[in-house]
């Protein structure tokens, strides 16, 4: 099945089973390998992308469902060389270690910051609860999101 969808602002087409996971269509068909697979069960958030402006686990979305819809991956957060505020702050604060969770964290945090939802540390922790990081202990990630929200 041919599926036309908008990815990071560009119209793209994939030709595959509609049952294929959006995650796999992004990585294999569109070669956008920034989005990582963690658990494949919707628990860890590593594969987080935005679908029509909401954050979703791309491992739980069938690509057929994305026809005519809008997807933003970690590759779509920066404008050219200009990083999104959360990407800049994740670098500045050291909010990344092994890096597997980082693309999902960056996408979720960008959504949270752009929507003006990052109003307190507790709120950030609640909104990022679907993104598991086994390295950092979260403190530096929360620092980065709070700083990015202040910079907005």
């Amino acid at each position, binding site marked *: 099945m041919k599926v036309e969808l908008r990815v990071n602002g560009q119209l793209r087409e994939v030709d595959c*089973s*509609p049952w294929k996971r959006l995650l796999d269509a992004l990585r294999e068909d569109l070669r956008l390998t920034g989005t990582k697979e963690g658990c494949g069960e*919707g628990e860890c*958030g590593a594969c987080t992308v935005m679908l029509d402006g909401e954050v*979703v686990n791309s*491992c739980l*979305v*069938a690509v*057929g469902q994305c026809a005519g819809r809008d997807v933003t991956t970690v590759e779509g957060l920066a404008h050219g060389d200009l990083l999104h505020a959360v990407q800049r702050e994740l670098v500045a604060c050291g909010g990344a270690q092994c890096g597997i969770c980082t693309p999902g964290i960056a996408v979720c945090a960008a959504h949270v910051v752009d929507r003006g939802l990052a109003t307190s540390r507790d709120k950030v922790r609640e909104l990022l609860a679907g993104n598991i990081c086994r390295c950092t202990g979260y403190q530096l990630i929360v620092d980065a999101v709070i700083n990015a929200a202040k910079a907005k």
Partner: protein
Amino acid sequence: MTEYIRPRDLDEALDARAAHPDYMVLAGGTDLMVNANHKHAPAGIIDLWRLPGLGGIARDEAGLAIGAGATWLEVARDAAVTERWRPLAEAAREIGALQIQARATLGGNVGTSSPVGDSLPVLLAFDAELELASVRGRRRVPYREFCTGYRKTLLQPDELIACARLPSPDPQWTTRTTWRKVGTRRAQSISKVMGAAVIELDRDRVVRSARIALGAVADRPIRIAAAEQAVRGLPLADAAEAARAATRTAIAPIDDVRSTSAYRREVAGNVVAYFFSGIIS
């Protein structure tokens, strides 16, 4: 190759369902898509995600009607739900995390009918009614009759869940509603025990009636009739202990990877007691 159908409205969806009862009915995919790459592909998909006419939350005199396609994020953010059907908003906020709440729907939770479906005890406690639709017409089923066994429901192969209706509390009584979930962590965890209650008090703070429902303690979400009977007519101050004792003997939970029977029995008693002891005004 899996066939893919995206109906334009409910009528088209019902036609597709009648023509292809073997196709997977898919909305947010948060349950059906788990490990999808290791699963056998379905013969076809009927995609109900954002189907016009299937979403939305509407309030009228009789109560609240929540479209099967409404997501938990929409339920959690709805002013009417937060104001008068608060346990449903609280449950919605504890179903997975943001990524799950943005996709998971009421219809999915009801249709999957897992014994650990977080919204299901809330529907029981409010004595909700489901509206089921097919090309043969519509019918209403009390939610308490809908689950007939482990992941078994009254939904027929040509039917779709249209909406759930939650009646308004009777203004004649003081109604207290409550929700509690116990899991390994607040977000993302599958419940060990969870439940909801709708409690009517008279002017003297005597329990007039209570509907108490729990999940994860049986093969389906259940009302705890013994506890409901035990508290009827009791002063609120005595209700918590009576409800705890009745609950502990009424349920027979199982041991599994998430918890043990003994733990679930203990915690279920505590949760039900809290439904009453947590009422402070």
